[in-house]
């Protein structure tokens, strides 16, 4: 199983000192957090992508390329890559390039973005969000899998005789996750292609996360990629740790109370109850995190949000240390103990995808297409193709 850190890259005033980091300091801080993650034995660092203040993370491959040069083992990912407003041709080029620079230590998580005005700034319409995600991602898959692409869609200039360069490392496109909080179309998209599904989890009640993941798992099986419990699932989580629960709460509370997303609303205690947030000892974090698998099933990647809301870098680096020394080693052992043998421990990596050879389904633009066509030909009852509401909410 993989464990890591995901950052939204916000610049937020430290409410305890009134000090706001400069953009340069914030970027440097994210780099230090990523390097620390590798140093303490975490597996993944993922950066968000935003194109508006108070965020600095407008250029993920630049940043991840720099981190790649300074690390040897760390997997570099995104949380999320805006598949709606970015040109899929540029995503194909940038991330293939990053694959080459990093020796294949790259995967990506597709997302639609949550800031309305970003769409018009990039010439798009937010009401087309799902359709943009569908069309752009399909084109991205082609660009990484077909040597010459001829293509005409609804949102972008047509392509005639286009070859994306560099081609993916070892002819093997990076593994892709799709992140969505509540759009069932995106869970369906992830399932259709046999990609991973990531639930942000941190701003939602567990019942909601459970239903979204269950839907993805059922559809993953429906599209013939494996059994539902073999689908590739990632979750977010949010923690703050100290030697005692009281100390953790004392230090974290002012950051919580003034946080950009939920500050000035629910109490720390209420939010802990409502969402997976855990503020306490490393043992408490271990216990809570292990409980996630009880409602989403055995999963493959756990990401932690720890560097936000104006927390100073020194405090965040301590959190990474604790994750690496006291939390993740226990989680690794315990998650493996409960995992059935047929459920993969890790998501696909560059090495595993290369090992599975050029004929593996990963190399098809639409791995499920043959199965869907075969079913259509034998005129399977349309009703049987959809799960009933009871199955998902049960």
């Amino acid at each position: 199983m993989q464990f890591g850190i995901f950052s939204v890259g916000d610049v937020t005033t430290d409410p305890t000192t009134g000090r706001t980091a400069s953009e340069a300091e914030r970027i440097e801080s994210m780099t230090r957090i990523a390097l620390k993650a590798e140093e303490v034995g975490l597996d993944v660092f993922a950066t968000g992508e935003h194109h508006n203040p108070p965020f600095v993370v407008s250029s993920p491959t630049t940043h991840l390329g720099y981190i790649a040069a300074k690390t040897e083992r760390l997997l570099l990912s995104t949380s999320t890559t805006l598949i709606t407003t970015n040109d899929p041709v540029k995503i194909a080029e940038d991330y293939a390039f990053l694959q080459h620079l990093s020796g294949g230590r790259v995967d990506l998580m597709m997302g639609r973005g949550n800031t309305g005005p970003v769409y018009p700034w990039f010439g798009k319409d937010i009401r087309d969000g799902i359709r943009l995600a569908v069309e752009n991602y399909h084109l991205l898959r082609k660009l990484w899998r077909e040597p010459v692409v001829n293509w005409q869609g609804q949102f972008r200039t047509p392509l005639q005789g286009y070859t994306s360069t560099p081609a993916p490392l070892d002819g093997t496109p990076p593994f892709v996750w799709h992140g969505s909080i509540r759009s069932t179309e995106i869970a369906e998209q992830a399932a259709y292609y046999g990609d991973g599904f990531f639930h942000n989890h941190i701003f939602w009640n567990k019942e909601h996360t459970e239903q979204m993941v269950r839907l993805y798992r059922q559809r993953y099986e429906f599209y013939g990629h494996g059994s539902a419990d073999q689908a590739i699932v990632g979750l977010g989580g949010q923690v703050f740790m100290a030697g005692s629960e009281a100390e953790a709460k004392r230090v974290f509370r002012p950051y919580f109370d003034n946080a950009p997303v939920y500050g000035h609303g629910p109490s720390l205690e209420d939010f802990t109850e409502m969402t997976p947030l855990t503020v306490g000892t490393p043992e408490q974090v271990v216990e809570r995190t292990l409980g996630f698998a009880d409602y989403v099933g055995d999963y493959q990647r756990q990401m932690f949000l720890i560097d936000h809301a104006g927390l100073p870098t020194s405090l965040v680096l301590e959190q990474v240390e604790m994750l690496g020394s006291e939390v993740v080693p226990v989680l690794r052992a315990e998650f493996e103990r409960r995992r059935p043998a047929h459920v993969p421990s890790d998501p696909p990596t560059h090495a595993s995808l290369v090992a599975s050879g050029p004929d593996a389904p990963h190399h098809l633009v639409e791995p499920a297409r043959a199965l869907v066509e075969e079913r259509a030909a034998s005129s399977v009852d349309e009703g049987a193709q959809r799960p009933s509401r009871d199955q998902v909410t049960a």
Partner: protein
Amino acid sequence: MVTAGLTVPSSTRLLADQVAEATVAQVTARGESADVEFVEVREVAGELATFMVTGGIPTPRLTELRELVAAADGLVVVTPVFNGSYSGLFKMFFDALDKDSLTGTPVLIAAAAGSARHSLVLDHALRPLFAYLRAVVVPTGVFAATEDFGSHGLSDRITRAAAELAALVVGRGDYGVGGFTPDLAARPRRTSGTQVEADVTPFGDLLRGHSGTD
């Protein structure tokens, strides 16, 4: 019954009780029985604030109420009049509903105020709100100023509005026979928004026209 009074007892709730009683009588008179459930918005005021500032994280109680409202055959809504409109708390409850919660649902609008000079609040504030939610608002609204609690006119209006609501609630569901009307697919579809919809569009349909080759 969704009522947004702030005090106990409140004139808002007093009005709601009278409308509830009249509605039950009118439904019963049409040969059906009516189960009445009250939502006192005040009791979830803090939870609504949490829901708003967290981008929609629901509490269990709020989830229950959202499901209750989305499943109701008819709705009576009663607000106090604040600064010439419905109260902020009243609006917060409806802002916390899924936009398809009330589609096609019969709604009786009512308001309690200190003065008759606010009586247009029903037609200038409540009616547009429920039109946006695609509810079916009955023609008679019930407005009660303090002095109305001593007049016959109020109970007459309540009876008329309740009769209109009961007629809509009891008479619902006749959308015609398939094949005879092109609008069968337009049957109002309601959802509380509290559960993940399992009835997902197959990906082949989502991809149609977007695969670059068709």
